[in-house]
């Protein structure tokens, strides 16, 4: 290394030292309670973090496999229940159920009518109309249904 380059290098080293001293001074000029202020200002944000589940790192791979199986069972059950409820909830089946219930009730009513003398032609006609409507797939309103069941 020639003398000029050695001088340059020495002078640059002086600049580096001066810069380090300046940086140290700037850091030292930070308020004493700066960390406290920052922690206070960010406390709510850090507190809002979701803590990681503790069991996962402990149980490791087998826990994950178990959780995966459990999730699969839950999904399969939900799908089975959904399909089942769709089948049970179809309007046609509901009508059939209604008609069969009414049929049983008519028999009861006929028995009662014969023994106790309650009921009457007009009520029976209303009930028969309700059965016809339901069996023909005509929707009955809640009032009509109530009226029909009241006839019994």
């Amino acid at each position, binding site marked *: 290394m020639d003398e000029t380059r050695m001088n340059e290098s020495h002078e*640059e080293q002086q*600049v*580096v030292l*001066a810069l380090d001293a*300046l940086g140290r001074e700037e850091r030292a000029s930070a308020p004493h309670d*700066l960390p406290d*202020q920052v922690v206070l200002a960010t406390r709510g944000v*850090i507190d809002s973090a979701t803590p990681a589940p503790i069991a996962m790192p402990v149980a490791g791979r087998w826990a994950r496999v178990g959780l995966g199986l459990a999730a699969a069972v839950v999904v399969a059950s939900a799908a089975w229940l959904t399909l089942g409820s769709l089948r049970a909830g179809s309007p046609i089946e509901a009508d059939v159920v209604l008609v069969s219930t009414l049929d049983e009730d008519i028999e009861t009513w006929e028995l009662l009518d014969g023994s106790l003398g309650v009921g009457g032609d007009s009520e029976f006609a209303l009930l028969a109309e309700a059965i016809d409507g339901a069996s023909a797939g005509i929707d009955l309103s809640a009032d009509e249904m109530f009226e029909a069941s009241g006839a019994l």
Partner: protein
Amino acid sequence: MGSSGRARRQDAGPPAEGGPQDAEGCERLVRLASRGDQDAWRALVELYGRRVFALAKSRVRRADVAEEVTQSVFLTVATKLTEGSYEERGRFESWLFRVAMNRVRDEIRRARRRHEGEDNGTISRVVADERTAGPERWETDRLRSAIEELGDADREVIELRHHGQVAFKEIAAMLDEPVGTVLARHHRALGKLRAILERDEASLGKHDG
């Protein structure tokens, strides 16, 4: 002894390049803080708070504004950590200082807009207020003025390295440039600073003579 030794190491200038233990420890703190561990978060703030402050103050020149910038930087970092959008595993330091540099740039732009049309007197006054008499202060102030004369790219490397104590490797990751390019820029910036200081010295010599 332990604590004074650590304090000396922290203040002894930029850290040693690529300390693996520090990086691992730091990532552990980051992981814990992102899960709501206040102690880990405080440790991170203690580790980086003053360094971010020094970087900001070197640019904005006002302690109160630098303090605001520091709080804002850590608020951003805390939010990103807790909402899970921190994805730069193993690169916390470069990520933190990138957030800090962006925030500092925003603040400078805002200050420029505020002072547009004015004679820039506020900033000059603030700088003058901070400069007190005395030979050692005079040297420091000359260096500050010389840094202000650097271009933005050179100045960023100098301030990140000497105020923020950021390792060259992390600066390179921040700026998305090879380490060699960053080292070359630092060397060039030192040369420019030396030239500016020599020019000022010569100018003073002329006046004195």
